[in-house]
């Protein structure tokens, strides 16, 4: 099956810093999403981005489908950005059967 690798596994930053999280995938995909899991375990979808670039406030994401990677940018980090960020993909069109990476744990210190 498709492999999803995220880097770095852990990232510790001071409030106000910028960060870039990377997701590599082993095969072409029709669906790529970024999720945030907060410290209480709740999962929220951030972006649906199988290709191209999207922005939502301080967050933006870019997927280069031909090179099989996606990047999540967080600017001017806040303590509420802390948590685990997951990339998830689906190989071919279907019922959103997502394959998740292992995540990047982001800690923002005040």
């Amino acid at each position: 099956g498709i492999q999803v690798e995220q880097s770095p596994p852990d990232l510790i930053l001071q409030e106000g810093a910028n960060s870039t999280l990377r997701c590599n995938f082993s095969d072409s995909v029709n669906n790529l999403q970024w999720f945030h899991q907060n410290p209480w375990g709740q999962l929220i979808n951030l972006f649906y981005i199988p290709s191209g670039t999207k922005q939502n406030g301080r967050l933006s994401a870019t997927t280069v489908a031909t090179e099989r990677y996606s990047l999540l940018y967080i600017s001017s980090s806040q303590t509420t950005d802390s948590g685990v960020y997951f990339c998830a993909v689906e190989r071919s069109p279907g019922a959103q059967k997502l394959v998740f990476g292992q995540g990047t744990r982001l800690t923002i210190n005040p």
Partner: protein
Amino acid sequence: NAGVTQTPKFRVLKTGQSMTLLCAQDMNHEYMYWYRQDPGMGLRLIHYSVGEGTTAKGEVPDGYNVSRLKKQNFLLGLESAAPSQTSVYFCASTGVLEMFQPQHFGDGTRLSIL
């Protein structure tokens, strides 16, 4: 509008016991999913359903059964619990439209098997 509700939130079982986890959604979504999340890992798909009365296997289905008798409910059963099934279980749902819809997740059920 409660979204996706999982019951129970916590449970401790002994090896060999059985139990059912309930997922309920009030968004009239067609698709529903059960995932498990082990420490330090991403979610893995156990089973999913594309509509009332249908179920299908995901990435890690062994040791679990599911049922979707009503559109709003998706049940996950463990017939004979094993310590390897200790995990946090998440349910999710999404609709079927021309435009992409993200999966909405419940808050999780933390299950420990002793």
